[in-house]
């Protein structure tokens, strides 16, 4: 991901020390202005015989010996992205300063990054508070000692394949995205340079495998994840949190939302990631002519923003999924590790699915596990 090495620190990262420094600087500036004001008032008026139309000293004007534009005007145009002439005939080669890049940098550093880390930190905080208040969601009726096959071997392999890559891509991506403001001050420039380089190489390498895995996830789990009326009822009951039993089929509203959320974020991450990996191999319809900004640069700028937003959305929701799938709910994880779930768990959380599959419940856990692996779910 592109970063500007001279980018100023954004306001959200400044601590109280910086704020105090800025206030002190402001006070000093006001004091200086106040003291200097009488003297300035006496010196700004030019003498009566002053010449006012002489060009300031500097290099020869462009466009003629006498010239008709000042250096300031020329630099103003350059700053606004005016194109000059270059031996390099590729689009954008004549542009000295591309203002669009500054816009991109400001959006990334002052909007996307602060919002993204606040969202992720907020989700983590909510989960911690929820766990502290609610504790682990137990199987109310206790374990029955009988299990039902729930996820086939293919489903579990695909799930953990995505999960493995989610972790690899997530850690390396977060280092790339937030490393500069958070890690650089902690570990110093040398260690951070190595870490950032390693993260970038790893992220780029695992990206294509992630695309394959998320595609496999969609194909494997699409069936059964369409929304139904029962999901609306489940939502209105807050999944059972608001009191009363919330019925659901094989997947409840939250799981279905997670599936579609992950699929859409995965699609956005995949497309933007491909643009970032292969900017020089854009398809023909994207190769629009532009004298000022090469199309691949515009697309890369958009792609980095889309990539960051989609990643934060994916990881944020993913944290909730990981929480509920592990420490948040008793009996949930074994569905994805062993392929079977406890009968009481199935009744309490997926009663409609349980009604269709209760004949498969067995006290022989090993046999149920083999049946699940064989796809008899």
């Amino acid at each position, binding site marked *: 991901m592109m970063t500007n090495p001279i980018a100023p620190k954004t306001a959200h990262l400044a601590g109280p020390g910086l704020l105090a420094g800025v206030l002190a600087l402001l006070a000093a500036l006001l004091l200086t202005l106040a003291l200097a004001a009488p003297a300035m008032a006496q010196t700004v008026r030019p003498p009566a015989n002053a010449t006012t139309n002489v060009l300031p000293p500097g290099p020869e004007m462009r466009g003629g010996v006498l010239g008709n534009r000042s250096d300031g005007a020329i630099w103003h145009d350059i700053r606004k992205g005016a194109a000059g002439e270059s031996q390099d005939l590729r689009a954008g080669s004549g542009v000295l300063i591309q203002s669009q890049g500054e816009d991109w940098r400001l959006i990334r550093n002052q909007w996307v990054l602060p919002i993204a880390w606040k969202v992720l930190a907020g989700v983590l905080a909510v989960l911690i508070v929820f766990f502290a208040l609610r504790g682990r969601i137990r199987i109310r009726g206790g374990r029955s000692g009988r299990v039902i096959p729930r996820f086939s*071997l293919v489903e*579990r*392999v695909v799930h*953990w*394949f995505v999960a*493995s*890559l989610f972790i690899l891509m997530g850690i390396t991506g977060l280092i790339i995205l937030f490393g500069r403001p958070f890690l650089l001050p902690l570990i110093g420039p040398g*260690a951070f*340079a*190595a870490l950032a*380089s*390693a*993260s*970038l*190489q*790893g992220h780029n*390498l*695992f990206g*294509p*495998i992630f695309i*394959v895995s998320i595609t496999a996830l969609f194909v494997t789990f699409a069936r059964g994840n369409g929304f139904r009326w029962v999901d609306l009822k489940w939502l209105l009951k807050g999944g059972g949190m608001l009191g009363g039993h919330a019925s659901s089929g094989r997947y409840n509203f939250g799981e279905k939302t997670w599936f579609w959320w992950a699929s859409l974020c995965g699609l956005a991450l995949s497309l933007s990631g491909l643009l970032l990996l292969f900017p020089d191999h854009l398809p023909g319809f994207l190769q629009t002519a532009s004298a000022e900004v090469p199309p691949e640069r515009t697309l890369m700028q958009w792609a980095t923003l889309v990539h960051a937003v989609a990643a934060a959305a994916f990881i944020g929701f993913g944290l909730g999924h990981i929480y509920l799938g592990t420490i948040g709910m008793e009996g949930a994880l074994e569905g994805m*590790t*062993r*392929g079977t779930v406890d009968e009481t768990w199935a009744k309490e959380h997926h009663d409609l699915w349980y009604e269709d599959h209760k004949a498969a419940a067995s006290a022989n856990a*090993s046999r149920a*596990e*083999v049946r699940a*692996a064989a796809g008899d779910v």
Partner: protein
Amino acid sequence: MSFLQLTQGPLWYLASAVFVIGVAWRLIGLLRLGRGPDRSVARRSGVAGALKAIALHSVPHGGNLKRTIYHFVTGYGFHLGLFTLLFFAAPHVAFIKGLTGLSWTPLPRWGFLIAAEAAFAGLILMWLRRMTDPVMRRLSDADDHIATWLVFIVMLTGCLALQEAHDSLRALHLLCVEALMIYFPFSRLMHAFTFLVARAYTGATYGRRGVTP
């Protein structure tokens, strides 16, 4: 002595010595076991049986393609990717040249990436199968998991050092490689050397009796 110098110097020679001596010790030990006397009349050639077994056991056969397609694809993806990286990745070719003076044309970057993708995907998928399949999980022991994770970490640190701009990443990769080399002779990773011998032995034994294994 810097961390890099340590991993390129003393640790490298130590790991190499353990690897070479350990592998030789294991192979010589296997060969010294010899084979029991077979007094039956040979019905077919043992050599032909050995070659047939090596070839047949390298691809799905006997109608078990559906059952083994997963391991076939992921296994070949991983092994071909790994050995392509080991012998043809540009940094490895340069390293081997520095050690032996021998050199050959390295892979272009796109070739490296394809090999690495195949190796990583294959290894991850094989390990996931080991963890999720109820039978394979019970058959697996610590050695299987340690070997898998060591290979994964070696591949990972190698790819993280791909930019070749930081000594610390190179040293980390070397350290992991050395750990793998020391572990190698005492683990099932030895199958890299023994799989041909084992298949040939079985094939020759059965082939001599006129049976296709």
